[in-house]
């Protein structure tokens, strides 16, 4: 208890030294641009905040005769500087948003479907035919090995691969189709700087390009029930070669079934 109290009280100081109190290292194409916008915005606003707090403290403690006299015009100057900062930030941020979200996925993107279910993530690859098989809700049977309710009557579903780990090749775009089976879930990969809700009845698409090989945590960011906190999975970014091998293994395994 005492030890945790000690580490606890020094936590804010540690915050600036260890990376665990900051964004995890980015591993996606647009990660560095987002991080740099985040850093610069935080620093600009922190500077404005510190300046304002100094004015407050001076207003409270500094004797009136020792205060510098400002002309009333500084209020307008401050307002204009604030607006200028906002405009600049918005232009950069909206440009980035357009680059990432207002574009279609590349034609050669890896296709993968993510399904959120209380309290699991499932990932489905369309297999060699490139088409996802049909899904029937009444066939959903997690214990029986068909958590998504794949319809065996649909030939497209025969080569579909369903996994509990998301594996993606590095330096290649992945087009992710988001679904939810029961309630709204939040698909969040902090290391990829990507978050989007998976809403039942409303499939949506996002795309990301991993740039660094490694493991990344996938967590749920939208309250989904009592197991919300433990709804996590792993994104494994590997070389294209490793990805092909992995896919082939799973393909073979799914055929055996």
């Amino acid at each position, binding site marked *: 208890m005492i030890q*945790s*109290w000690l580490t*606890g*009280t020094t*936590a*804010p100081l540690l*915050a600036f030294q260890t990376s*665990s*109190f*900051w964004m995890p290292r980015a591993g996606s194409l647009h990660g560095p641009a*987002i991080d740099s*916008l*985040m850093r610069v*915005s935080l620093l600009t*606003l922190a500077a*404005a905040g510190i300046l*304002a*707090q100094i*004015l407050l403290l*001076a*207003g*409270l403690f500094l004797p*009136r005769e020792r205060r510098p006299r400002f002309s009333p015009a500084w209020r307008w100057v401050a*307002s204009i500087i*604030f*607006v200028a900062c*906002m405009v600049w*930030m918005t232009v950069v*941020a*909206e440009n980035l*948003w357009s680059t*990432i*979200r207002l574009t279609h996925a590349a034609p050669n993107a890896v296709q993968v479907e993510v399904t959120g279910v*209380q309290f699991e993530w499932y990932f489905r690859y369309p297999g060699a035919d490139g088409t996802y098989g049909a899904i029937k*809700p009444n066939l*959903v049977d997690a214990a029986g090995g068909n958590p998504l309710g794949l319809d065996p009557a649909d030939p497209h579903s025969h080569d579909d691969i369903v996994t509990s780990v998301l594996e993606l090749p590095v330096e290649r775009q992945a087009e992710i189709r988001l679904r939810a*089976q*029961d*309630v709204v879930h*939040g698909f*969040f990969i*902090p290391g990829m700087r*990507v*978050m*989007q809700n998976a*809403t*039942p*009845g*409303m499939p*949506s698409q996002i795309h990301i390009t991993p740039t660094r090989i490694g493991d990344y*945590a996938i*967590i*749920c*960011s939208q*309250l989904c*029930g*009592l197991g*919300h*906190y*433990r709804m996590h999975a792993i994104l494994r970014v590997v070389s294209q070669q490793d990805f092909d091998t992995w896919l082939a293994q799973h393909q073979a395994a799914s055929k055996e079934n």
Partner: protein
Amino acid sequence: MTNPANLEPRRPRSWLRRYVFTTSHRVVGVQYLLVALAAVVTGAVLSLFMRWHLAWADSLIPGWGLIKPEDYLALLTLHGTLMIFFVTSAAPQNGLASLILPEQLRGTRPSDSIARESGEPESEVRMALPFLNALSVWFTLFALVALLSTPFLPGGAAISGWTSYPPLSSNALAGPGQSYGMDGWLIAIALFSVGSLMSAISVLATVITRRLHGMKWMQMPLTVWSWFVAACMMLPAFTVLLAACGMLFSDRHFGTSFFFPPVDVMNGVVLHHAAGSPLLWQNLFWFFGHPEVYIAVLPAMGLTTTLLATFAGHSLAPRTYRIMVAATIAIGLLGFVVWGHHMFVSGMNPYVGRTFGLVTIVIAIPSAVEVIQWLAAIFAGGLRRTTPLLFILGFVSLFITGGLTGPILAQPILDAYLHNTFFVVAHFHLIMGMAVSFALFAAIYYWFPLLTGKRMSERLGRWHFWLSLIGAYAVFFPMHFAGLAGEPRQYAQLTGTAAFLQNLLPLEQFITMAAFLLVAAQLLFFWNLAHSWIRGEKSTPNPWDAGTLEWEAPENSLPARSAQ
């Protein structure tokens, strides 16, 4: 000519008629504050249980045992609902408006002849619709009772957070607490909405019809402007919320499908519905939810402007006054077109996200203009360093710290990392929780002499202020770092989560300890309140040399006024 009825001595009313079943605007105001007090104490205690569990998930709570994940979510839902509805909305707007608004307008009935005919004393200061106003607090009280009874229903309290997104909230299969507990939550919020609508109507009618003869709109104090604009926002906001609650209730029990997807596999059971949309709830809820933030914070902003002028010993410059009124109205209007910034990651069209992002940045401008005016007033100096002033400065400090992260969250691209993380928790607790609480404290320290004829202890007040300020920053500032690290809010515990989150445990433990300090510091306030009420130093009729009309009353203590 005076109505002869008024000359006869009135029969003294019973205690019940004076303090419980009364339409006296002051008593109703105090009743609102008492409801808010019950809510804030409960909400704060619940938050300590949550903080404890988040920091030391495996330890046993005395008198409770182990907190289960669903218990944590029930605590979280109750805490959020209590604080947002029953504290930050009911106290500064409904409560303080009822308490102070009519006296700041000091208006009698528009026509003296009507007053004579109805037998109403010509000089009586009251709300325009006193019965409706009094009824509103009863709805609020029943709503609180309904909400606080949900933990004792089978299944316990709802676990879907104060935002209650369907389908999590639309079917009992979604988890414990989602059957009776969720129904109770919906009933509580519906009752609260009705109460708030009544209060808003009565505030609007009072401002429109009961201003002191000759008082023009541009002569009203800024507090009145804020209550007026907030009441204008409440009408559409709470109407929509009430409708949404009705729709969700109907989805749950009457087979409609407003918010249900066509097919849903909940807990292994296949549910078929007509094609509704879970996104519709989010739109309706946030159409209420964002204006709600301004309903809570506008009265605090108006109070700040007024009190800064009072403690500087002068009235507002006409130009500053006009700027502040314009900023208040601008916030009120823009407040209705920014709700989509709560939904950037909902899967909405990215073009829509862009629009909401832009409008949200625009709304930062009137707020920044107000802040710059306050800073100018504070820096110009000559402020009397009283306890209410300290709390107003605390409000400004927290409003700035909490507000500055707003433009970051307003950018869809940055929000797509920070959404639903502790960064957001830090943002809204600083600007809505802490800042509004500090303004409420300022209001209580400031108007206490008006209500009781006594002064609150300044020495205790200063201690209360500094400990609360340190506590508020110690609790909520480190949360920015947890959020930047990617820790989602609403996680019952960090053990059993993804590995990178477990590194944040020391930070969360620090926050928990600071939370205990922050809550403990409030005991000073309660001691001060009780002690000063009974044994406080007698106050002069206008202890702060204020220029607003509520201080002009010939006899201004609570029993004297309500006995009339």
